[in-house]
């Protein structure tokens, strides 16, 4: 019988895999949530979380451990979500996030869940490049200079996208709340 040649990576690869896995394990909740914020549907988010990990692993050598990991992960997640959205080609109606999906629970948890669902649904209505800036800066608290670096766009563009995204978020929320009241 012929033998399949199986190989193990060199020691440096193995230790970088350990570090990468460790980092992923710590931030998997963040990656998952970021993809949801960037419009990835609940049925695809696990697969794309795995894609983020694979991309992270491939790029681990380029990651500077002196810098915070989350913005770096966000950059990867953003690229993956963008490619996903291009493929999906906007064929899904926006705003079908599970706003009414909250199950029974304590009032506060329910409210919190609804608030989160509302924010996700409102974010869906902001075009992805602007949404990414808003999520990074207004939700993740990443300084604008880091937003510019991670998304590889000029500082001025960050500010203009942020301004516009905030306006879009407000009007989306207003519209959604009005729709909810009308029902």
């Amino acid at each position: 019988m012929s033998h399949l040649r199986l190989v193990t990576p060199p020691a440096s690869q193995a230790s970088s895999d350990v570090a990468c896995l460790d980092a992923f394990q710590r931030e998997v909740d963040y990656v998952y949530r970021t993809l949801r914020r960037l419009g990835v549907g609940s049925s695809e988010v696990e697969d794309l979380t795995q894609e983020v990990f694979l991309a992270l692993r491939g790029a681990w050598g380029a990651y500077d451990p002196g810098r915070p990991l989350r913005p770096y992960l966000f950059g990867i997640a953003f690229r993956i979500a963008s490619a996903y959205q291009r493929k999906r080609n906007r064929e899904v109606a926006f705003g079908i996030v599970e706003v009414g999906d909250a199950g029974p629970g304590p009032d506060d948890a329910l409210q919190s869940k609804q608030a989160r669902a509302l924010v996700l649904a409102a974010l869906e209505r902001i075009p992805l490049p602007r949404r990414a800036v808003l999520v990074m800066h207004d939700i993740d608290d990443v300084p604008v200079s880091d937003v510019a670096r991670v998304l590889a766009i000029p500082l001025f563009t960050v500010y203009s996208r942020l301004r516009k995204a905030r306006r879009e978020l407000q009007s989306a929320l207003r519209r959604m709340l009005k729709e909810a009241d009308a029902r």
Partner: protein
Amino acid sequence: MSRPPLPPEVRALLDREREVPPLPAAVRARLVARARAAVAAGAVRDPAAPRTAPRVRWAAAAALVLLASAAGAAAYGLRARFAAMPSRPPAVVVPAAVVAPPAPAASPAPAATPAPAEQPAPHAAEAPRLSPADAARAELRLLRQARAAVARQDFAAALAPIAEHARRFKDGRLAEEREALRVKSLAGLGRTDEARRAAAAFEARFPRSVLLPAVSKMPASEP
């Protein structure tokens, strides 16, 4: 930095979203196990690396498949509750190579992951007799046997559970992994033509699979 202020109610909503909600334990376990399995399996695809100690890595991969799918099985009942949600388009798997940030030249894709990218519901002949959770466990058991055999390089022994899985769960949740294992086993047995055909069938059936780059190389990887 100058911020056009957000109205307080909008700010309050964003503040709610600021905290990252913890994932359900089963989802988390599945995601981490998939990542681990990808690393373990990725070792197979590095042609430049020294060739040592494959068994341990495959055994680890197999164990992780078990863990991930057990978690998946446990979560199955939960998933079913969401079946009534609005239907979505089929899963779109973006090839890592397309979207990866600037990276070192060699970024091996996984040779196998426990949860397939495209997941048809478990059904086929087992559906009337097994609950979804039981079916998931049964699928898992078969593929665990297959993976353990591959880990031992006993490729002939791997083909039996693969065939049984194909018979009982033709379009099961782990069909994608089963077909990847089939290609690997055939290649391992030196049945190169069959391995090629199986790889072509895999590509036709799972054109967006993250396993595809690994599967495509398997028939050629044998002496």
